[in-house]
């Protein structure tokens, strides 16, 4: 069942310049979908439209069967959490504890129950030891973890990551990616991740490739990445293992698709022995 359905979405930031030129796709409940595309391809705009932070010029968005509109936005926001790119610009309160509480306050959760909820979700993202720290004493990765905890505390069935790892150092990137994989694997939540990280995209169930305000292609990772020429034409990178396969083919060596370096080494090694 589709939990997110987007139909013929049009959007412009400025008149006469369309950022989205008719975008349609649907996302299955419990799936992990990544949206790839270079900067300016319209991918972040989609996230903001789905979260109701921007209003589409035309087109429709359905979340869990409900059509997104002024009347339903409050309801829909409860089902959907979004983690933004800049760790600094989404940390609202002055301590980890209070930042996680921010969303709970907005949804009128009983203050007496908040401490337990805060503990639980801070623990889930590994921030239990830092509950009383101020944002200026946290790393970028830690701030993003707090943002995730704040969202999880509201039990959304959909979580959108809008380039949530792109401003982090390698350690931070790995921390957040691990949480994303766990959220999908253990919790069966619907995850929509807008990213530049093709290694992350490789791990997702579906990929939507955006180019110039349109959906360029949708599909499973290997369907998307096997089109190396098409991806290069629209300025996207190709996963390492796919590049190796491509280079070997030029030398007349055929190997199957692989996702990780370990798999690739295995395949190459058996190819050598054969």
């Amino acid at each position, binding site marked *: 069942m589709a939990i997110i359905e987007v139909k013929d979405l049009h959007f412009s930031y400025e008149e006469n310049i369309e950022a989205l030129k008719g975008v349609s796709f649907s996302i299955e409940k419990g799936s992990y979908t990544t949206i790839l595309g270079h900067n300016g391809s319209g991918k972040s705009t989609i996230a903001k439209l789905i979260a109701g932070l921007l209003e589409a010029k035309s087109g429709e968005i359905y979340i869990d069967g409900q059509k997104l509109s002024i009347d339903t936005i409050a309801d829909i926001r409860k089902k959907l959490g979004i983690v933004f790119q800049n760790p600094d610009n989404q940390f609202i309160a002055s301590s980890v504890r209070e930042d996680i509480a921010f969303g709970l306050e907005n949804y009128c959760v009983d203050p007496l129950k908040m401490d337990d909820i805060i503990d639980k979700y801070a623990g889930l993202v590994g921030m239990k030891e830092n509950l009383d720290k101020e944002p200026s004493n946290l790393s970028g990765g830690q701030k993003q973890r707090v943002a995730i905890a704040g969202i999880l505390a509201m039990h959304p069935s959909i979580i959108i990551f809008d380039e949530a790892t792109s401003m982090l150092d390698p350690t931070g990137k790995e921390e957040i990616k691990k949480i994303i994989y766990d959220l999908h694997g253990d919790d069966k939540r619907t995850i929509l991740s807008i990213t530049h990280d093709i290694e992350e995209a490789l791990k997702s169930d579906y990929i939507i490739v955006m180019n110039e305000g349109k959906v360029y292609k949708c599909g499973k990772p290997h369907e998307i990445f096997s089109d190396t020429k098409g991806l290069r034409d629209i300025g996207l990178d190709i996963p390492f293992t796919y590049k190796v396969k491509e*280079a070997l083919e030029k030398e007349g060596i055929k190997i199957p698709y692989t996702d990780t370096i370990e798999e690739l080494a295995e395949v190459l*090694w058996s190819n050598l022995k054969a």
Partner: protein
Amino acid sequence: MVKFESLSYIYAKDMPYATTAIEDIDLEIAKGKITAIIGKTGSGKSTLIQHLNALLLPTKGKLVIEDHVIEADKKATDLKALRKKVGLVFQFSEYQLFEETILKDVAFGPKNFGLSEEEAIKKAKEALKLVGLDETYYTRSPLDVSGGQKRRAAIAGILAIEPEIIVLDEPTAGLDPRGSKEMIELFYRLNKDLHKTIILVTHDNEIVYNYADEVVLLDKGHIIEKKEAKAFFEDTALLDELDILRPQIIALKEALNKKGASIGDDVHSIDDLAKYWRQHG
């Protein structure tokens, strides 16, 4: 030539919460090369490079940049000449743009260093050409263009000063893969064609492996290792010990060699590897 001599820097010296950011740094950075400075967040990379523009002055020791000497407890003199020689491109450098047009903004630096309006504009145009922004951008507002173009305009603002040494702090942060690649290739060209000395702070070891000549590794304010870049990443035992992310080609070679292959140090790229596999397969 750039030379750090037992240089230390302490933040908030004399305060109860004083912290040593870098300690006893002895480092020579060769002219005309691309030197990458790597290390975890908080290892002192940014502190180190800010000394190159006398934005921080050493608490101890000294720094020699050609004929400039910056010493602890001595007022730095002739800062302008130093800052003309060493151009510093900060992380998220697009935040330094402020003039009404891109051309004016790029000309701002050269004007500060004493060039006439006319000469400054000429330098600005040359710099914009280098970063790939054509005439149509001259009159556009720097706040009106895309993130990647803003970054280029900001970098042009440093290049227009014509520094001999260019220091870059995470120049690719926040750019998409295509933007990153174009950015790094720009610096590679500046080094190869215009013989600029490039000092690059980055977390991206693929860039270090593919483009840098030398690697300097900082950890907790100390220099742990300084080595030729390719050789640095071949030493996988060292990478394990220092907890360094491997470039993917190194990881693949390592995995294959563990299985019994014997791919040598001359395989640096995917194409090298493919050729190697054909010859040995």
